């Protein structure tokens, strides 16, 4: 039997349906791949092989009875931000200690209801705060890609770094992540895979460890655009337990996937041509424009004048909401407690010990901008800027159907290369964060390699709730770019 871990979800579904292999064999191949490769990649912080085999056996029984769900027997990895019943969930923070949720997040419940198999919990930046996975309490996850002729370990991006690394290294068929400022799309670009951030509210946030509630959104990381469509199909739902979840029917995302993009109008935002952008990225963007033109799309320059303010505004809104959301970690109801002489000192000790440096930095920034006398100057101001950013997109979408941009301003960097300066690290999200600020859906598609031999992605942005057109254009982009080379396996023991 050929290596089952190299299949796409679409191919694995066909193979399972044709009884070429069983769900158990499929799970088993992945468990062996994780055994061999996870030590070097650190993508899984908690593999769950026994659970995977039990779930796969149950899948095989359902397949035998002709009761297959849409993801029946498909082995997936889950970012450690999703609460999984009875399975340790830490957000990769020490403060959650050995937390075992007594409930299941809506998105993961949807996935299990569709028949998928849990391979384990995946690494991420602590509380999803980061763009490199370096802030994880479990240590950095490693990108399966390396630069040409160079053995330096590269970051997989973040915060869904484990999800991206696991998909790219065939340690799962697909993964579930979250995106607050680029946390699905940036790591997808860094590892040469597809990453989709849906419209805010398309997937329920219930049971996901909260970072910045007005920005957080769950989405898939996958090997192909079609796989991403399959995963989103199951993840998306209206959920009465999340008041921000959108109550509109979930369309069939694969239906129009192959319809092509003839006649679609694609906007190129001039403000995304930032100073000092590497030649590689410029070239790739130009290529992307040519591909879309060749496929019959109409290209138009558009302007999003407030683009440069999105990132600084984000670094007010996100820490403000984080400081409020993370107030719950006090060493009383769950997680790690460090004793103190009184209640206040117990709080202070528990939080000092439990949170990492980046998380503390953001809580303190958030506390500062929300503190008495500063609310209007910072949070209110940033929320007004968000309105302007959203208006920019609304104006652009009166002229075009989609926007095409690079996903990141540079390819993957080495571990430790950027960690010294927080603001430098934040600049990684300059092209992705606008999408979160406006609540729009965005898709990163692998589109080529940098001069260093590492992957680069292009991003498509659509109108709210227009994931169908987004995926349709993503499919066309993927077809035009052709298959990317795969990274050479250096990570197996």
């Amino acid at each position: 039997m050929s290596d089952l871990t190299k299949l796409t979800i679409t191919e694995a579904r066909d193979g399972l349906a044709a009884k070429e292999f069983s769900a158990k064999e499929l799970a088993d191949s992945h468990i062996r791949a994780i055994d061999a490769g996870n030590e070097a990649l650190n993508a899984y912080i908690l593999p769950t092989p026994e659970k995977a085999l039990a779930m796969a056996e149950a899948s095989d029984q359902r397949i035998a009875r002709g009761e297959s769900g849409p993801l029946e027997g498909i082995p997936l990895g889950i970012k450690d931000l999703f609460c999984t019943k009875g399975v340790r969930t830490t957000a990769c923070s020490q403060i959650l200690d050995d937390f075992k949720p007594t409930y299941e997040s809506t998105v993961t419940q949807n996935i299990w209801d569709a028949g998928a198999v849990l391979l384990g919990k995946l690494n991420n930046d602590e509380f999803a705060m980061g763009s490199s996975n370096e802030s994880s309490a479990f240590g950095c996850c490693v990108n399966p890609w390396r630069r040409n002729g160079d053995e330096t370990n590269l970051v997989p991006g973040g915060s869904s770094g484990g999800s991206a690394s696991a998909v790219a290294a065939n340690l799962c068929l697909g993964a579930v992540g979250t995106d607050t400022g680029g946390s699905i799309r940036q790591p997808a670009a860094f590892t040469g895979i597809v990453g989709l951030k849906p419209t805010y509210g398309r997937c329920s946030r219930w049971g996901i460890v909260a970072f910045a509630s007005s920005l957080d959104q769950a989405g898939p990381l996958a090997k192909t655009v079609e796989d991403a469509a399959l995963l989103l199909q199951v993840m998306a739902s209206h959920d009465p337990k999340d008041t921000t979840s959108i109550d509109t029917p979930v369309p069939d995302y694969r239906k129009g996937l192959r319809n092509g993009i003839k006649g679609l109008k694609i906007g190129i935002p001039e403000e995304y041509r930032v100073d000092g952008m590497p030649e590689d990225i410029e070239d790739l963007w130009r290529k992307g424009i040519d591909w879309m033109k060749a496929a019959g799309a109409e290209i138009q320059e558009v302007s999003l004048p407030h683009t440069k303010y999105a990132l600084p505004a984000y670094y007010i809104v996100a820490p403000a909401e984080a400081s409020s959301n993370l107030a719950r970690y006090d060493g009383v109801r769950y997680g790690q407690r460090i004793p103190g002489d009184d209640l206040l000192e117990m709080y202070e000790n528990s939080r000092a010990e439990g949170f990492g440096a980046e998380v503390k930095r953001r809580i303190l920034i958030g506390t500062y901008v929300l503190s008495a006398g500063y609310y209007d100057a910072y949070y209110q101001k940033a929320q007004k800027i968000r309105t302007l950013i959203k208006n920019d997109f609304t104006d652009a979408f009166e002229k075009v159907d989609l926007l095409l941009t690079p996903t990141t301003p540079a390819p993957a960097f080495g571990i430790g290369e950027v960690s010294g300066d927080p603001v430098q690290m934040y600049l990684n999200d300059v092209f992705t964060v606008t999408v979160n600020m406006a609540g729009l859906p965005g898709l990163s598609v692998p589109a080529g390699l940098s001069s260093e031999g590492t992957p680069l992605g292009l991003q498509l942005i659509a109108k709210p709730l227009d994931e169908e057109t987004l995926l349709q254009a993503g499919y066309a982009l993927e077809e035009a770019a052709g298959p990317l080379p795969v990274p050479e396996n250096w990570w197996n023991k």
Partner: protein
Amino acid sequence: MKVDEATVRHIARLARIKVTDEEAKNLETELSAILTWVEQLGEVDTRNVAPLTSVVQMSMKKREDQVSDGDCADDIIANAPEVADHFFVVPKVVE
């Protein structure tokens, strides 16, 4: 915007995070850098702009005012560091 060490200590107290002297010094530099960087937002005229409250227009759903969950005290205390029966235990707060 520069923050001084006293301000760092004040917000750390508000955020209930103990900071060491060394951390306070580093945070003074780091927080000042971030707050200076976000100052560029001052260039934007937002006088007649409403703050964004919702990214997708919809009215908030309200559920019936009925008990829909509960009777799961064991679940609620399952992960607590210290419990007595169905209570969370904290250091003494009243003398």
